[in-house]
């Protein structure tokens, strides 16, 4: 498996786990009436910190294990795959942000809008990593 594909798998898994924890916890806090902006900021900060640490430590371990592959510069296929992932994710992000913009007038809580925007961002990033992984797995034909 290419080093960049391993990193994409790692980032995808870390993102799904991290936000799979954050959004239900935010929802529970909202149900209890504790969903204040400081509370959610602390929760999000904690989740992001753990996610970043896991990704950094695992990336270093993978780089050591991959040896030469980890230091190889991206070649034309890597760049094309990265570009394809970003292009599709951008479309998803735009749809998400427009959707958030459409429902924004109906919510007065700042954190609800922030969470909706964050959700759109997370979905776009997940799509990006899925496209990257699939492109490496199943091949690239332009």
């Amino acid at each position, binding site marked *: 498996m290419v080093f960049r594909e391993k990193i994409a798998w790692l980032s995808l898994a870390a993102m799904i786990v991290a936000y799979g924890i954050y959004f239900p916890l935010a929802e529970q806090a909202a149900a209890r009436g504790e969903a204040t902006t400081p509370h959610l900021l602390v929760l999000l900060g904690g989740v992001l910190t753990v996610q970043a640490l896991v990704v950094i430590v695992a990336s270093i371990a993978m780089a050591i294990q991959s040896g030469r592959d980890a230091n190889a510069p991206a*070649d034309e*296929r890597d760049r094309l795959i990265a570009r394809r992932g970003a292009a599709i994710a951008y479309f998803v992000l735009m749809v998400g942000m427009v959707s958030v913009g459409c429902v924004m007038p109906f919510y007065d809580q700042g954190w609800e809008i922030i969470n909706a925007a964050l959700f759109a961002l997370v979905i776009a990033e997940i799509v990006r990593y899925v496209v990257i992984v699939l492109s490496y797995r199943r*091949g690239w034909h332009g």
Partner: protein
Amino acid sequence: MVKLPSGKVINQIRLLRFMADEMTQAELGDRIGLTRQTVAAIEAGKYSPTLEAAFRIAQVFGKPLDEVFQWEG
């Protein structure tokens, strides 16, 4: 809408590597600026290289492009 003819690019890279003293995928990749995995993907038909990379591959083996890559319709 125009219906494009179906087909795919095939290549003789595995055979040419064999004939070049079993050149490894990594060696070929190093000479043309691609990773070993990309060379493997090209050989397996999972990735069609750019025209520049295709010419570089042909140059390494001292063959014309159409002896390395063919269109299979």
